[in-house]
């Protein structure tokens, strides 16, 4: 396995008797966008949470930007931007208050307000910047989660189902942000069940099934109707 900005080796996560991730390995280099594909319950979100430093791995090695995700959690959090799969927003705080808290705790330099305003404009959230997020639609919440993940220009951008319920303009804004991260040398890990969008956004894809990685392939191999057949074959072949 090549060394990269993100290195996952034999990752295992157990919740009591339930094995959510059972020996996943992959790596992603600087400037690369990698997709995690798979059915519901494949272990994508759990893997993302480990990468974000939110839950500790039960076993295996997870290195993010050169830091051990289990022991150097704070350093990992400084280098990562994470859009969680569910919610991800404090219900009675406004988007601007979320950004203020992130700017403060991430030690962002003076002038962060300009980037915050630009992102809110890009994701069509400027009008609601001072309204609490509890009144947001699902799609608005997803878009704000992407804004919060990418706000501090992290080395590693982790997006878990960022397109879920998002309108085409929001999807375009997210795709543009993924490209921008790649152009500045950052790494993107995208977890989604929307194969075509993953193909469009990423260079490579790791297919997970039942908590294990079953294949790694260039995204182009999973494109179009042939790619769909190949993808389904990957999932079904390992069903038995």
């Amino acid at each position, binding site marked *: 396995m090549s060394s990269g900005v993100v290195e996952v080796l034999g990752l295992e996560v157990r919740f009591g008797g339930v094995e959510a991730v059972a020996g996943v390995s992959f790596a992603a280099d600087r400037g690369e966008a990698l997709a995690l594909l798979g059915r519901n319950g494949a272990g994508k979100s759990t893997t993302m*949470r480990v990468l*974000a*430093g*939110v*839950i*500790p791995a039960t076993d295996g090695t997870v290195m993010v930007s050169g830091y051990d995700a*289990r022991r150097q*959690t*704070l*350093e990992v*959090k*400084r280098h*990562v*931007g*994470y859009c*969680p799969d*569910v*919610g*991800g*927003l*404090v*219900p*009675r*705080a*406004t988007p*601007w*208050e*979320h950004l*203020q*808290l*992130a*700017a*403060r*705790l*991430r030690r962002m330099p003076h002038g962060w307000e300009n980037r915050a305003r630009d992102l809110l404009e890009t994701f069509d959230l400027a009008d609601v*910047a*001072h*309204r*609490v*997020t*509890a*009144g947001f639609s699902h799609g608005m919440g997803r878009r704000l*989660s992407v804004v*919060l993940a990418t706000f501090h220009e992290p080395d590693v951008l982790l997006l878990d189902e960022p397109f879920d319920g998002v309108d085409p303009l929001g999807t375009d804004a997210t795709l543009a942000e993924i490209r921008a991260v790649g152009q500045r040398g950052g790494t993107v890990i995208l977890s989604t069940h929307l194969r075509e969008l993953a193909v469009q956004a990423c260079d490579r894809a790791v297919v997970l099934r039942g908590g294990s990685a079953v294949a790694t392939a260039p995204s182009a191999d999973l494109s179009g109707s042939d790619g769909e057949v190949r993808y389904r074959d990957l999932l079904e072949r390992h069903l038995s």
Partner: protein
Amino acid sequence: MKGVPTRVMSAFADTAALVRFRVGTIRGHGRRVARVGLAVALVLLVVAAVVPAWFPDGRPSRIDVAVLIPSICLGVVLLATVAAATSGGGRRLFDHDEGLAYPLGPGVDHLGALALAPLNIAWILQGVTLLGVVAYGFGPSWSLLPVQLVSILWLVAATTTAQALSWTIEWVRRGPGGRWIIRAVAGLVGGIVAWLAWSARLGDLLDRTDLTKWVLTTQLHASAHSWWSWLEGVTALIVLIVVTGFLGALMAGRVATRLPRDQVRLESVHHRPRPAPHSDLVAMLRIDRASTWRSVPLRRGVFTLGMLPGAIALAGDMEWSSIAILPGLVCSGAALLFGINAWCLDGRGALWRETLPVEPGGVFLARAVVLVEVLVIALLPTLLLASFRAGRPTAEQAAAVLCASAVAITHVVASCMTSSVRTPYAADLGDARATPAPPLAMLSHSARLAGATTLIGLVFDGTAHAPVSWSVLVALPLILFSCWRFVRIASLWRDPVVRSRVLTTVVG
């Protein structure tokens, strides 16, 4: 279109199904705790209904106690109404979002709120008080059974009446200008009660009121073996239960057609941005305070807790030594607003907050500080109101009240942060009827907190009659013990495995 009897039967059947579903979701240790808790509450009610009858007649005499029954009956309705009205119609058997996919009418919501009303420490204590007073007042006799049947029917009638009143209040509150109408009425009623209490006329008025005297009259008929008159009273109580139960369902339907204005206003209003925070702690406190004070149930709860106990103390002409019991009661009540499950303030945002690069100890401290603020904000008006008629305290009394407050606050904060880490729940505190934990867990927490804080109150009620140093000497070890518990749970919170379990539970 279904007929009324069919709809009523259907509502009862749906409610029973939901209760079975809810009970089914309580597993393992929680199920054992729930069984023990309910058994204890039931035994307590039965003991209160029987045992005091065999106490010897003394001071106060049975007659002196029996004349209090109408006032206690009135108090049960008033407190039940305040509790249900403050929470926007009482507890929910099912979350709004959970119920959306099912054809559940407002009748089910109403019956669910009625079923959950007794799972409340205040309701149980009032029930115990009423049954105990009636048992002592009427003494040992086989006719105690029909007498207590009247008490039990009154508890049910008071609950259905309070529920119907609370739906009506919520319906007005959700209407045009509703918030101001409710505030004006509450202010007017509060003002009149305060004036009556100030001029020492409240007791006379309660004695003269006929609203609940007929309950005592019905009990006296049973005691005198006037069975037809007793039966008339019992029938009237059953009719009251049916009528208020039906009216409650009707009003619940009306409420469902109106938007919850308080919640909608808080969710749609623009909040003026503030300057960037100058420290990490201030930044975290700011967002935690926003989560607290923009929550409808928390605002209403703190206001009620700040006013009600103080108003009762004012009306009851409470002395300073007895005021020492109030800090514990107020703090245990305020803790139930969010403290027992403090991480639920973040809702699903807990996961995002955990990705921010900050020491877990700082996050823990900020949450505890906000909890202390809530307790103090609820406590200050209570003590202020209670002090109006109590006069100037002696140094011993002042020390006892201050020490009781400090001990109660530190105990409640340590207990809350412990339960928040050990037994978290997923809860959204945006809705006026939301609670930070499921009903049985709320009952368990409230019983434990109320038990400990009442004990604290009684201890300092005693030290108020002793030199100042006694209060301080008693308070110090108790405060240190709470600080040790706080530090211990804060260090557990630093464990990433523990934190991830809490956060993934809270996120739901």
